[in-house]
């Protein structure tokens, strides 16, 4: 299976995190379905031109999250679960909220104000049609 992954050198995040995110996305959009075989660790490392240990680490984390299953000597497959996409977005939401909370702390913005601004942001993303 060709991964079609492209890693960013300018992205501040470590390579293994970028790999995790791209695998999650492949699963979330349904390109990689439950039971499907993932590229082998060595194959993906060669494909992305990164070290074997980096891909190994990404796969270990994905296994811990329950998104993939690794059968020793047979490779890794996408776990049989239907809520994979939901779980991915759920995780992203948590990350963004944590970041928002952190930035609010740095800027010294009160919880009340953060809540108000979140409410505004939600209003703005609603489709224009429902606005009066």
């Amino acid at each position, binding site marked *: 299976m060709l991964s079609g992954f492209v890693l960013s050198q300018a992205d*501040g*995040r*470590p*390579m*293994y995190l970028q790999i995790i995110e791209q695998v999650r996305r492949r699963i979330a959009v349904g390109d990689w379905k439950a039971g499907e075989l993932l590229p082998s660790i*060595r*194959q993906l*490392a*060669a494909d992305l*031109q*990164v*070290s*074997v*240990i*980096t891909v190994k*680490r990404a796969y270990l984390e994905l296994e811990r999250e329950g998104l993939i299953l690794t059968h020793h000597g047979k490779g890794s497959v996408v776990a049989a679960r239907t809520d994979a996409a939901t779980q991915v977005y759920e995780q992203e939401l948590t990350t963004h909220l944590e970041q928002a909370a952190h930035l609010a*702390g*740095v800027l010294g913005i009160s919880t009340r104000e953060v809540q108000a601004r979140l409410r505004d942001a939600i209003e703005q993303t609603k489709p224009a049609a429902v606005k009066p």
Partner: protein
Amino acid sequence: MNEFAVQLTGVGKDYRFFSLNDVRLEVPVGQIMGFIGPNGAGKSTTIRILMGLVHQDRGEVRVLGHSMPKKQAAAKRDIGFASEDMRLYGSSTLDWHMRFVRSVYPSWDESYAQTLLKRFDLRREQRITGMSHGQQVKAGLLLALARRPRLLILDEPTTGLDPVARHEVIRELTAVMQDDHRSILFSSHNTHDIEQISDQITFIDRGRIIDCRDKESFLDRWRRIRVELPGDVDVPALPGIIGVLQTGRLAVATTNAFDVSLPRAYEAAGIRVHAVENMTLEEIFVTNVHYSREGVAV
């Protein structure tokens, strides 16, 4: 089979103005070891010792299970070596070199050699003297790679290459690792290349190994923590923090043993943590050399 392709224990060598001391270097089979050091740190001397080109004064050297320098003839059958200062015969063509290496090593893979010629943008009929420095480096690598050796020892393989050529070389090295019986040791001061493809990393400075571990642990353990102090006080000393740079109420602490308990400990002391930053391998390397020269245990 031996689990290490290269194993140096307590290796030393004395020269008049330089000595290599107590070098321990282990390259596990199936992995890439990046060997990083400043100029004159002892990288090339170490590599010459493990190739049997220089004999160590002390310590044990085993390469592919063979004791060096005694069993170097047996070991070298399976070692592909390329170094920046390796001399090819200037008046001969690349084709002549290819046929020569092919006649000596039965493992030579001609179709792979053809592929490499194309990827490295080299011409068989060209004489070595007519080649640019970069082309000569690539020619040396081609001759080593096409033998498909179990162990590749590359001294500064990407130094002096343009970005396109460097990329091709990196691609070939990672392609080699699809076979988990093969191993690579490569030295460089280009930490970027090493960060990308190495599984293990060893830092050497002034003839001594100053740090050595797998790459992911290196990147995981080193962090910069940016903090804001509550007033005119010093950053409290915490275990694992190897250096603090403080100006006014802002400070940057560097750690080589990061744990989430560190920023929490700052917060508990009333210090606000602004950011916890990852460090590149280059930053880690430079900081490591700096503190080791200052005598700080890192």
